[in-house]
């Protein structure tokens, strides 16, 4: 644990944090992600890429990509986080380092609209014939889209907003951004 933190600090000038037992999180610049992943894979023994995940920080106008790598010797996980711009998002393609990254990148490309230049198969992944905006972005209004696209049977108009009911009953405080992007 300590050696990983000191090494990363020396080479990349970053400040890794211990998230919990055997989990380290580190934030880097977008341009240094692939070199850090290569260093972790080749020098530190993090041979397995668990997942690439994407978070939509709409208030800050950014996407956060999380690369989760793992090494089998001491079962340590490192989360490499990077932020990219939300306007015309583009990220370096790492499917030459791990083949399985290709699948995750295709999924992120379809669900969040982030382009990965040089992807082996930049075609549709799960959604067939999708013409709307990327559906996992937070500004995509899924209910509005569903009501416009699909025919519904009448009779659900008086359905209550369950979230509102629960917050009223428990006195929970909902932040403004959550209100803005909630269902109603």
């Amino acid at each position: 644990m300590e050696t990983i933190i000191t090494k990363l600090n020396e080479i990349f000038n970053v400040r890794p944090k211990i998230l919990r037992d055997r989990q380290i999180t580190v934030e880097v610049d977008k341009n240094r992600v692939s070199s850090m992943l290569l260093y972790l894979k080749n020098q530190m023994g993090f041979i397995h890429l668990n997942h690439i995940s994407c978070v939509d920080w709409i208030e800050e106008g950014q996407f956060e990509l999380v690369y989760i790598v793992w090494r089998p010797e001491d079962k340590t996980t490192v989360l490499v986080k990077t932020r990219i711009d939300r306007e015309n998002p583009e990220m370096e393609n790492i499917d030459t380092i791990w083949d399985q990254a290709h699948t995750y990148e295709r999924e992120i490309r379809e669900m969040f609209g982030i382009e990965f230049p040089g992807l082996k198969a930049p075609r549709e992944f799960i959604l067939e014939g999708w013409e709307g905006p990327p559906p996992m972005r937070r500004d995509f209004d899924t209910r509005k889209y569903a009501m416009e696209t699909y025919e519904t049977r009448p009779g659900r108009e008086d359905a209550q907003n369950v979230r509102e009911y629960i917050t009223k009953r428990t006195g929970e405080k909902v932040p403004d951004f959550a209100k803005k992007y909630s269902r109603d």
Partner: protein
Amino acid sequence: MSDTKDIRIITRPTKEQIEQAKIDFAPRCTSAGRVNDKETQKTVEFILNFARKHSLFLLAYGTGCGAIEIPATLTSRYDAERLGIRGAATPRQADVLMITGYLSVKTLKRVIRVYEQMQDPKYVVAFGSCTINGGMYFDSYNTIKALDRYIPVDVYIAGCMPRPEAVLKGFAKLQEMIQNGNAGNGECYRKNLDWYRANQRKVIKNWDFPDEYNW
């Protein structure tokens, strides 16, 4: 039998051509529609419907969570086979198409193809509230909300999920409808094909069916 009409030429995989006598098929049984007498027709239809309702071959299209209720219904605890309900291997052998949950647009394409491959008389049983009004996926961007806009449905079984008792009750209703001659929706589909096709093309954006489906 030396007439040329009774001989056919067969090309073998080795390009060798051989002559073979035509097989003399037995004359087919006359169907129920050919009986002119009305009273007799009633009797024949009664017998046919009786036979149909007691041998329902089930094509379980297991989408969503409802697929898990089918093994429970068919196996020894609830034993649907005592009512004549059992599984079929392919769409062409099946009488009942059972849709057990939500359908995404991608799955709807496959369901339409399966439905059109089935032979008359065919029945559709829709299962769970997802097929009725979308269920808990009513605001999902990728699932259809009302199945009967896309293929005709005979029996809806409400519930999320319906228990095997409810499933058997639904099948009892279907059997009653078959006996009264109300079930069977292939003809309805063919008659209103334009309406169904328009609805299907509205949600399926990349219509890439083979030519046999583009009537």
